[in-house]
C-alpha cells in the first residue's frame, strides 16, 4: 500500500515508471472488492426487508401477489389468539432469558475470576453448551423433561412417588422449559463475555480499593461491575436477538405445544408462510418482529454512537 503512494519515494519503483492503470487499480481496487458484497447485502438483506413489508400489505396466500391491499393482514394478525400467545411468550421468554443468563453469567465469571485452579478447564466446561446447536439442546432437554422418561421418572423411581415435574406437558409452564434450555445453552457465553470484561479491569483500581478497606463483595458491586456497563449492553443486545429469532429450540423442544401454548413469533411466521399458504399474514408477523428488533437496536446504536462522538 505504502509503495503505491506517490508521496513516498520508493527506491525500487523509481526505476520502472508506473502505468496509469496500476494507479487507477490501486486507488479503486478496495472499492471493487467490497462492491459485490455490498450490493449483495443491499439487495438480499435490505431489499428483501422492503419486499416483505410490501408483501404484508397484499392478499398473498399460497404465492406472493403484488396487488396492494392495505393493512388487512395486520388486522387479521392482531385478531388471532395464537399470535397473542406468541407475543406474550416472546415477552416472558426474553425477560427471563435475559435476566437469568446475565445473573448466572456474571456469577460464574466473578467466581472464575478468583484465580482458581483449573480455570481453563472449567471455563471450557461452561462455554461448551454454546458449541451445540439449539436442535441438539432442545432434543436433549425434551427427553430430560419428559415426565415419563426423564427427571420425574428418575425421582419417582428413587421412591418419591408423589414427585411431579411435568412442565413440558403443562400448558401454563411449557414456556419456562424453553427458558431453562435457553439459559443452559447461553449463560456460558455470557460468562465468557463478562470474564473478558473483568480481565480488562485495571488491577491498580482493585488494589486501590483494597487499600481503602473495601471488601471483596463491595469492590465487585460498586466498582468493577458498574465499570462493565458496555459488556452489559452487548450481552443484552446479543441475548435479545437470540430470543426474538428463537425458532429451532422451540421446534425441537415443544414444537409450540402443548396445543399452541409455547408458540413464538418466529415459529408462527414459518408455519403461516410454508404450511398454511398465508404468505401475507406471515409477512405481517415478520414485519412486526422487524419493528421490535429495530426498536431495541436503534436506541442502542444511537446511544453508543453518541458516546463515541462525544469522546
Amino acid at each position: 500500500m505504502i509503495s503505491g503512494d506517490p508521496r513516498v519515494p520508493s527506491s525500487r519503483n523509481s526505476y520502472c515508471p508506473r502505468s496509469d492503470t496500476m494507479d487507477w487499480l490501486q486507488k479503486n481496487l478496495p472499492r471493487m472488492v467490497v462492491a459485490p458484497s455490498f450490493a449483495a447485502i443491499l439487495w438480499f438483506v435490505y431489499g428483501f426487508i422492503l419486499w416483505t413489508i410490501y408483501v404484508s400489505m397484499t392478499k398473498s396466500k399460497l404465492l406472493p401477489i403484488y396487488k396492494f391491499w392495505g393493512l388487512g393482514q395486520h388486522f387479521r394478525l392482531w385478531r388471532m389468539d395464537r399470535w397473542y400467545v406468541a407475543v406474550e411468550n416472546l415477552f416472558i421468554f426474553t425477560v427471563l432469558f435475559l435476566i437469568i443468563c446475565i445473573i448466572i453469567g456474571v456469577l460464574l465469571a466473578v467466581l472464575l475470576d478468583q484465580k482458581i485452579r483449573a480455570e481453563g478447564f472449567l471455563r471450557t466446561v461452561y462455554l461448551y453448551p454454546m458449541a451445540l446447536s439449539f436442535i441438539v439442546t432442545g432434543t436433549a432437554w425434551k427427553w430430560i423433561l419428559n415426565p415419563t422418561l426423564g427427571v420425574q421418572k428418575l425421582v419417582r423411581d428413587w421412591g418419591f412417588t408423589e414427585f411431579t415435574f411435568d412442565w413440558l406437558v403443562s400448558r401454563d409452564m411449557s414456556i419456562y422449559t424453553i427458558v431453562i434450555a435457553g439459559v443452559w445453552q447461553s449463560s456460558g457465553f455470557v460468562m465468557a463475555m463478562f470474564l473478558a470484561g473483568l480481565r480488562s479491569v485495571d488491577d491498580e483500581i482493585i488494589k486501590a480499593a483494597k487499600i481503602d478497606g473495601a471488601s471483596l463483595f463491595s469492590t465487585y458491586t460498586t466498582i468493577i461491575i458498574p465499570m462493565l456497563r458496555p459488556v452489559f449492553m452487548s450481552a443484552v443486545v446479543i441475548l435479545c436477538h437470540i430470543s426474538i429469532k428463537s425458532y429451532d429450540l422451540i421446534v425441537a423442544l415443544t414444537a409450540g405445544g402443548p396445543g399452541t401454548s409455547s408458540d413464538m413469533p418466529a415459529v408462527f411466521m414459518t408455519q403461516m408462510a410454508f404450511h398454511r399458504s398465508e404468505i401475507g399474514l406471515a409477512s405481517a408477523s415478520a414485519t412486526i418482529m422487524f419493528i421490535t428488533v429495530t426498536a431495541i437496536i436503534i436506541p442502542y446504536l444511537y446511544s453508543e454512537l453518541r458516546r463515541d462522538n462525544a469522546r
Partner: protein
Amino acid sequence: MFKPFAVSLALIASGGMIASSTWAKEAEVLHWWTSGGEAAALKVLKDDFAKNGGSWTDMPVAGGGGDAAMQTLKARIVAGDPPAAAQIKGPTIQEYDEAGVVEPYHVDEVAGAEGWDNLLSKQVANHMKCDDFTKYCAAPVNIHRIDWIWANKKVLDANGISMPTTWDEFNAAARKLKAAGIIPLAHGSQPWQDATVFEAVVLGVGGNEFYQRAIVDLEMDALNSPTMVKIFDQMRLLQSFTDEGSPGRDWNVATGMVMEGKAAFQIMGDWAKGEFTNAKMKPGVDFYCLPTPSNHGYLYNVDSFIFYSVDDSSKVEGQKLLASLMMGKNFQKVFNLYKGSIPARLDVPMDEFDMCAKGSAADLNYAAMTGGLLPSFAHGMALRLAQKGAIQDVVTEHFNSNMSSQEAARKLAQAVQDTL
C-alpha cells in the same frame, strides 16, 4: 478480470444445452419419500422411467411430512423455475392452478388417451383436475385410510374386551382398561395427531352428512352447533384416556406403546400398519385393524404428484411419461405394498395385499356408493391449508387445555370465518 468468469459461465450454459438436447425426456421430481420402504418403492418408478428413455433428476427433500420441501418448492416457483413434478395433494393442487403456475396442463392428453376417468373413482379423479375440475394436472399414487383404530389383541383378550363398534362401546372399554392400569389410548398430542383423532370423531359422532357440511363445506351453523359440542365432549373424554407423557410424542412411539401392550388402542392412519408388520406382528392374530366407529364412513388421503407448467419440450415429454408410469398397474401395486396404503387405480388386483388393505379396498367401494367416502381434513384433502390450519389450531388448543366444548365450537366457527 471478469473475462474468464464470463467464458466459464458460457461454457456451463452451453454444456447444459447440449445435455438437454441429448435427452428427449427429462423430469425433475420433488418428493419427500426418502426413507425405507417409500424410497425403495420410488426406485421402481425411477427404473421404469429410465427404461423408457427418460432422465430423472431426483429432488428429494428429507424431513418427513415435507415441511422443508414446501420451502424449497415455493422458492423455485417464485424464481420461475418449478420442478416438473412435485408431491402435492388435495385442494393445494387447485390452489397452485389458481396462482397460474400449472397451465397448460400437458398431462391431460395422457389422461385422456389412457382413460383415467374410468380407472379412478370420481372423488379421487376430481382432486387431480385443474381448470375448474375439467383437466388432469396431477396423478394419484395411493389411497390412505385415516379413520383406523389399531388395537393390541392380547391386551383386549386379557381384559375381556371385543373391538368396539360404537363410541359408547369404546368409552366403556377404555374405562375398564384404565381401571386395570392400562393406558386406553396411545396418542401423541401433536397438532396433526389431535386433528387425525378429531376427524374420526366428527365422522363417527356427527355422521357422514355432518362431516360433509362442517368440515368440507364449512357451514357456520354446523361448525358451531350442538353436534359439534357433543364431538368436543367426546374429544375431552378421549383426552382423559391418554397418559401424561402424550403431548409432543411422535406417532410411531405411540404405536410402539400399543405393540408392547402398555396401551390398548391407537387412532391413526394406515401407515401405522408398517410398524406392526415390521415387528412381525400379524393382523387379526396379534393386532386388530378396524375402522373407527362410524356409519360406513371412509376418510381418505390421496398422495399425488402435481405437474407444473414447463416450457422445454423434453420436459413436457418427461412429464407425460412420468404421469403414465405413475398410473401404471405395476407401480401402483408395488408402491402400495411397500407403503401400506391401497392403489388409487381401481383395477389393480388385491391378491398380494394383507387383510387390512383388502378390508380398506372393500370399504372404499362400499363407502363410495353410499356417500361415506369423504376427504380427510387433517391430512390436507378436504380444505385449503389456511382453513385446515385454523381448525387444527382450535382442535389442538381444546385437546390440550380445559377449554369447554361450547367455547371450542364457537372458536372453531370464528377461526374458520377469519380465514375466508
